[in-house]
């Protein structure tokens, strides 16, 4: 096992070096996300101001603000580019080069992306968590930081990332059929954004819909870690949702392996 993993360590270091090459791109990318986050903040502020009640579906305005910023942080931490990368490789045919290496196709993507993410996440996590905590202390009037919640949040984020990664890989294999993925990817991002609670908290949905969404894999992406961080779950709920996350990790991991063995058989390399 360690020997098998050792093969993939160069992919991590290559991923790190890649990200380091395009520093400016990274900064612009982040700025875009920060802007989107503030847009969302002002919309919700308007919603709460025009509402007569102090609570909206169990959320107070300070909680809502914390929710928005945590969603932003979590989305950033668990972001995965797998669909896009696979789609591009299939579109320009460079998938052929990856298939000529004695390594697992999915694993090379995973470790390369872990390398990419190590850079961004390590740089971002401390200032962003500090930022969220400052906002949180400011809007609620007291320090709310809970180290246990934070550690559980990190664990939950790792699993959320793995779910996201393997889900994206599975989705990317659609490119084997439709050849080009940009449109499908945009659609997927919208749907997943809604289903995972990144746009509206799932608690705002009608009861039955909320229950359905909570059992879909997408709530395990952003919603579960954020709710854990905010301390909205008691210990048995936390254990349950972490377990559910683990289940989805294994599910999509298995599915991606299955799809790959099917897809690679019907590959037609484009160009050259």
């Amino acid at each position, binding site marked *: 096992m360690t020997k098998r993993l*050792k*093969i993939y*360590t*160069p*992919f991590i*270091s*290559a991923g790190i*070096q*890649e990200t380091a*090459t*395009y520093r400016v791109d990274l900064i612009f990318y982040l700025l875009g996300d920060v802007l989107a986050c503030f847009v969302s903040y002002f919309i919700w502020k308007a919603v709460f101001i025009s509402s007569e009640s102090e609570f909206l579906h169990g959320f107070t305005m300070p909680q809502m603000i914390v929710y928005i910023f945590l969603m932003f942080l979590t989305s950033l931490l668990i972001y995965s580019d797998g669909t896009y990368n696979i789609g591009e490789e299939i579109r320009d*045919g*460079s998938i*052929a*080069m990856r*298939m*000529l*290496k*004695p*390594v*697992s196709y999915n694993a090379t993507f995973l470790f390369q992306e872990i390398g990419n993410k190590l850079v961004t996440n390590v740089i971002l996590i401390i200032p962003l968590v500090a930022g969220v905590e400052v906002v949180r202390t400011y809007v609620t009037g007291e320090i709310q930081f809970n180290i246990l919640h934070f550690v559980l949040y990190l664990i939950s984020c790792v699993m959320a990332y793995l779910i996201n990664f393997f889900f994206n890989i599975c989705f990317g294999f659609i490119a084997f059929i439709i050849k080009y993925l940009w449109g499908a990817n945009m659609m997927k991002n919208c749907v997943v954004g809604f289903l995972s609670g990144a746009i509206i908290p799932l608690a705002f949905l009608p009861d039955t819909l909320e229950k359905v969404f909570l059992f879909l894999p997408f709530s395990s992406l952003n919603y579960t870690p954020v709710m854990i961080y905010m301390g909205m779950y008691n210990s048995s709920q936390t254990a349950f949702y972490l377990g559910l996350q683990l289940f989805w990790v294994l599910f999509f991991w298995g599915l991606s392996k299955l799809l790959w063995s099917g897809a*690679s*058989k*019907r*590959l*037609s*390399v484009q*160009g*050259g």
Partner: protein
Amino acid sequence: MIHVDNLRKEFKKVNKEPGLKGSFKALFKPNYEIVTAVDGISFDVPKGEILGFIGPNGAGKSTVIKMLTGILTPTSGQCIINEQNPTQNRKKYVKEIGVVFGQRTQLWWDLPLRETYAVLKEIYEVEESEYKKRMEFLNEVLELDDFITSPVRTLSLGQRMRADIAASMLHNPKVLFLDEPTIGLDVVVKDNIRKAIEKINAEEQTTVILTTHDLADIELLSKRIVMIDKGNKVFDGKIADLKSKYGQMRELVFILENIKDLEKLEYKSHFKFKDDDLSVTNDGISVKVRFNNSVAPVADMLSYTLSKISVKDISVKDADIEEIIRRLYKQEVDLND
């Protein structure tokens, strides 16, 4: 070493009618067509041979190479390479082959070249001492030292190709697939690459399959060629055989004292050449007459020419492989006789 048996590959292709209207139609009611890219090809390659694999553009060469390397799954037929079926245990199989696609790169685009080699060393599990020896050897023949610390995206085409070839040889593969390794390169770089292929073949008994459009590559490196066209094998044998069998074209080159004399030469009517048997080009200084030796022997051509005009200089060139291949591609030579 390599056994290819009745290999076939079909692709499904969407047939789009021209224009915007056609695009819409294809969107809602695609009209599929089955295209046979490779139509039952068989051949064997013994260990240590360099096989030239040639054919005109679109003949199916790359498709065959992709099937042999395990990227594409054949529609029917099979290939056994190194006692393995490429599509069955991909990871194990690709460990023992090296591949270069001239049009693509396996190098890490954003990393210094050296890093790609370090990654390859790990994934092919090459021993440190072996790796050093290997790098030294490759450095010597391909002169990588000048750019080994530069990021791959900054390399010139010639540098990148040398680097790619080195990457494919790093793990000492038993079989090397080179798909147009000299495409777009200058003479010196081509020479280096040929030397590297020759050397690795001689030292390690590496089996090499080489596709190229530069027939000098083939002539210098391989004794045997397999030619395919439209998915079928049209020739399989030694280059020497090809030459003696189909090499009827000769070239007469002369410099006229008076360029206007050219009008006096009426080869076509005199020797009754067909259109394809004769071509006359004139660049203002020298005149090149390419003709079919079986219609008019060289001696007759010479005496006819000299009897009609006076020349400053005259020479006769032998058939070269390019000429034969050109005629084969244009299907002027019947391969079945």
